[in-house]
């Protein structure tokens, strides 16, 4: 695979496993085991069964008629919002809990920003009866109260991250510290295509079900397996990686990754990593991240708690540098307007994360027979408060 990972865990110049020695055995255990486990027939059978009967896959590929008329192209929505727990995050959580079980782990930790990954992890831990601790920035706990309640109801312990900026990057730091302190019995379910190798690769594989299904569904509906454009939002980039995965080697498919510009790329309140960041090391991998000249991580901003991460996954950094995918950005205002438009045009209230991808349609020019797939990565219930405040309902 041209854009895939090499044996040392690098995608071109990016990736690797920049971790303290305290984490080496855990990460090495995963590196040695994950492919065997993922390729094991018993694992595959259980994973596929749970995806079908528990998650509700395949998620539909919905032809959005009114949207298509508006934008003058055939627009399809990959409905990850219809998954159990309301987003694509459950695909990875199911995969990793089955992996953790096979590794003999007794305790699960996770980090979460918007709470979708925390909810997905709490859900699969409840499903398997395994102890679950979710780290969440103190500020995110305040702005995502319904998801905090869901995690608690599912039996997870939600621990506030009170260091640094008290958001997702700090929750990630705290989860890593927990893992360092509990190296033997604990598995860390990372929620995005970030972290030390093999996480970016493993999470991408679990999420690649999105593009695998899309190919089949598109063929059924249009007679063509390859779309002209694929769009997805990017924080760390897990839904985008899943949406791009099976199209990476088909260069005719244009891949568009939409980052959060926040209040504007140059406003000082943004999470547009590829525009503002440069190469460096964050949370265990060499990637592109927002940082000061001195290499201190800059706190990103987005109205969407799921997109305000200061880096992107290393494979995204590679796709960006190799120009295989185009990285663009959308402001808070544009995303919220797009969320409203999707609600009123198609009857679907999207997560604000996903709304960023939809907003970019406004900036594109299509030919009328272009086939366009957008990943609708999550549903908007968790963001209702933000929508209510913005539109003054």
């Amino acid at each position: 695979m041209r854009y895939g990972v090499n044996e040392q865990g690098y995608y071109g110049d990016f990736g690797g496993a920049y971790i303290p020695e305290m984490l080496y055995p855990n990460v090495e255990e995963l590196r040695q085991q994950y492919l065997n486990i993922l390729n094991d027939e018993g694992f595959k059978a259980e994973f596929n069964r749970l995806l079908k009967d528990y998650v509700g896959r395949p998620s539909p590929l919905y032809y959005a008629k009114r949207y298509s008329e508006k934008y003058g192209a055939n627009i399809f929505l990959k409905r990850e919002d219809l998954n159990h727990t309301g987003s694509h995050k459950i695909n990875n959580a199911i995969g990793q809990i089955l992996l953790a079980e096979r590794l003999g782990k007794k305790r699960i930790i996770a980090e979460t920003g918007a709470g979708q990954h925390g909810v997905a992890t709490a859900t699969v831990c409840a499903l398997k009866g395994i102890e679950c601790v979710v780290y969440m920035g103190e500020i995110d706990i305040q702005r995502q109260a319904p998801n905090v309640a869901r995690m608690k109801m599912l039996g997870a312990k939600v621990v506030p991250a009170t260091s640094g900026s008290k958001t997702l990057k700090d929750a990630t730091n705290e989860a890593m510290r927990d893992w360092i302190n509990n190296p033997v019995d604990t598995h860390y379910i990372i929620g995005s295509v970030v972290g030390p190798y093999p996480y970016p690769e493993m999470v991408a594989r679990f999420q690649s079900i999105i593009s695998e299904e899309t190919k089949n569904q598109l063929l059924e509906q249009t007679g063509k397996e390859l779309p002209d454009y694929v769009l997805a939002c990017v924080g760390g980039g897990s839904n985008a990686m899943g949406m791009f995965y099976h199209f990476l080697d088909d260069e005719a498919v244009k891949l568009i990754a939409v980052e959060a510009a926040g209040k504007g790329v140059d406003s000082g309140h943004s999470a547009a990593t590829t525009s503002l960041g440069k190469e460096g090391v964050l949370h265990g991998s060499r990637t592109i991240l927002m940082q000061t000249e001195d290499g201190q991580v800059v706190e990103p901003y987005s109205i969407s708690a799921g997109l305000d991460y200061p880096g992107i996954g290393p494979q995204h950094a590679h796709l960006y540098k190799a120009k295989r995918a185009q990285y663009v950005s959308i402001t808070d205002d544009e995303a919220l307007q797009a969320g409203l438009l999707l609600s009123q045009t198609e009857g679907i209230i999207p997560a604000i994360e996903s709304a960023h991808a939809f907003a970019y349609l406004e900036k594109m020019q299509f030919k009328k027979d272009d086939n366009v797939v957008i990943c609708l990565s999550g549903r908007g219930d968790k963001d209702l408060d933000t929508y209510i405040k913005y539109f003054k309902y």
Partner: protein
Amino acid sequence: MNRLNQLFAKKNKDLLSIYFTAGYPDLNCTVDIAETLERNGVDFLEIGFPYSDPVADGPTIQESSQKALDSGMTLKLLFEQLKDLRKRVSIPILLMGYVNPMVQYGVERFCQTAAEVGVDGVIVPDLPMYEYESMYKPVFEKYGLSNIFLVTPQTSAERIRKIDSLSNSFIYLLSSSSITGGSLNVSDSIEGYYQRVKAMELKNPIVIGFGINSNKTYSKACEYANGAIVGSAFVKYLGSREDYMAGIPEFIQNIKG
């Protein structure tokens, strides 16, 4: 032979190393603290260059790093402060920090500047063996800087051998698999780990760190290794009183006993 090798050639037991964060508690205190520590019998020093996301550190060192950053500490400023270091301090000095600030400064420029101001080695917890060996080793060697590796109770014998072969000053043995700021644990299993490493008869000396906070823990660590490193306990002390310089002799005395 750099200062570290000279030190270990001269003295191979009861070595005491102190870690402190550059620019904490005051932006310009770094060299003064180093000088005071040397005067009070500390054998070598680790000066931390602060980072915003120090995953291997506990709250004490993280807070000291954040305060130093808030006061304006940067790698560039630290190197400026260290310009006259060798006029005032003669014991070996290590810089300790995370890989990203080093990468942003430029690894070659970092190594060159460190060597110019008289730094002897570097401890970078998130720069693992593969990355060091495949990307940075020639640069470290060009400037005569030692890279110090960490070993934990979970590190395999095979990996310890490899670390020993890649090291040329000492190996940093962690008292437990944990972040900084815990307390030394000398349960049977940990004692077994020290003995296991000692029995390997490595070519490099061993210094134990993490959780060394008293004479008791320091003495215990010195039973199994050539010396011990005190970090969080000293950083906590520095933050505990206004006239922190005045109490340093007593702090060191209490550790050495």
